[in-house]
């Protein structure tokens, strides 16, 4: 660590490239915290969007026309408006309407900026996940579903144990794309001051006037994260591969 820091200090002194986060203890601390916040944000958004997709795709197959229309409206809304506008809307409009509590002299909202980022980005990606899962569900043969009902499965049981597991495998490539997209879109959380990497980088370059350096760091950071996600997804895909199927 010492050597590493010295190298970047040296680099700054000799060439002017200021990777301040690698030799300044305070900035390094900021950077590390941003890494954790970003990872937590991404994981929360991924999980929430998958749950939304799972439930949404289920509800799309509902008997009730009202339920189906609500889902269709939800998808249209989130697909056809900018995610940045969505996140601002959630935080500033819905955030104002939700209750807050007295935190010793000032009002603290129950759902903070991190929470709103997860909710809005989760719904945003969830709209796409719903569509993706639905396309997977359509690929599950009607006869397989029928076999489940003949065995006494309810529609929900058959969705959980038969339809979804099969649909999920079919739509993994499309899901992969959308989750990578979601990962990248989490940078929009800087708009509502979630201290994730984009926001923190912005603060660091404001304090240190090292925009190009921090940009480079940002690129490498997100390339690394996407690589990890893609690797994880392909591992998952392989572990779910069914012998003798597809």
């Amino acid at each position, binding site marked *: 660590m010492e050597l590493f820091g010295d190298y970047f200090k040296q680099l700054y002194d000799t060439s002017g490239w200021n990777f301040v986060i690698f030799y300044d203890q305070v900035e390094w601390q900021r950077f590390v915290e941003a890494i954790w916040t970003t990872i937590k944000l991404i994981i929360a958004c991924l999980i929430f969007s998958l749950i939304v997709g799972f439930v949404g795709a289920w509800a799309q197959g509902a008997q009730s026309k009202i339920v189906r229309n609500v889902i269709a409206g939800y998808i249209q809304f989130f697909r056809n408006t900018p995610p940045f506008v969505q996140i601002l809307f959630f935080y500033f409009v819905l955030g104002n309407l939700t209750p807050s509590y007295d935190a010793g002299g000032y009002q603290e909202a129950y759902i903070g900026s991190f929470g709103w980022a997860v909710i809005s980005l989760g719904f945003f990606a969830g709209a796409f996940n719903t569509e993706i899962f639905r396309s997977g569900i359509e690929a599950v043969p009607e*006869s397989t579903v029928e*076999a*489940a*009902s*003949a*065995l006494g499965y309810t529609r929900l049981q058959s969705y959980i144990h038969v339809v979804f597991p*099969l649909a999920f495998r079919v739509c993994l490539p499309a899901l992969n794309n959308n989750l990578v997209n979601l990962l990248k879109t989490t940078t929009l959380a800087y708009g509502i001051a979630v201290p994730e990497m984009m926001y923190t980088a912005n603060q660091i370059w404001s304090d240190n006037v090292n925009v190009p350096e921090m940009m480079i760091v940002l690129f490498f950071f997100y390339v690394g994260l996407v690589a990890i996600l893609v690797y994880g997804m392909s591992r998952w895909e392989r572990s779910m591969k069914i012998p*003798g199927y597809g």
Partner: protein
Amino acid sequence: MASPSQSGNGSGTNWTPDQPMVSIKDVHKSFGDLEVLKGVSLDVMKGECICIIGPSGSGKSTLIRCVNALNDIQQGSILVEGLEVNDPNLDKLELRKKVGMVFQQYNLFPHKTAIENIMMAPITVLKQDKDEVAEHANSLIKKVRLEGKENSYPGELSGGQQQRVAIARSLAMSPDVMLFDEVTAALDPETVKEVLNTIQELAEEGMTCILVTHEMGFAREVANHIYFTDFGLIVEHGAPATFFDDAKDPRTKEFLSQIL
């Protein structure tokens, strides 16, 4: 496992084994404008094995799919152990616990192994104890002669093996009636026999069976009664000996002359 007369409640309670286990009366079924069943009636007693034969499109599949409510009917009545299938408030689970079904295309769950396919429904649907289900499943694996294939996925099994898993999967629910819809039609001639043997054993053990089949030799040997359908009607029926050797209706005769 409750005995048939005890299982079920509501409309199913007054059934006794001296009444038909499945009683189909004047069933009409249309798909849109197409009337596929035009008043079909037949009874199946407990322990009986009946075969439905007839030309393609005559409504055989439609009929047996009505018995476990995979198809609804427009008119008539189907009683399974006294449970009325043509009832908007039908408890489908109650019906499907009584009626097992095996399909032409096996329709196994491809993401589960053979043994998991067999164990899934009793655990999920009947909420039975896992260990008991596993024990039952293993005995069923033996029954259909698939020892050693427990952990194979459907995609790794031959058609005949898959179909025997499908039979075991259905039996795991301990049904009182089994429906078989041309279960050997998708199989190689060599594997047809192993599946038919399994069904024959079941029938001999006293399982009530309704079969749609093109295997006339099998029907003659195993069935108690043969029904011949054409254009949505039962044209002729009888015990195998009379039916095959002494058919009365010209349509039956023509069909038999083509197929035998």
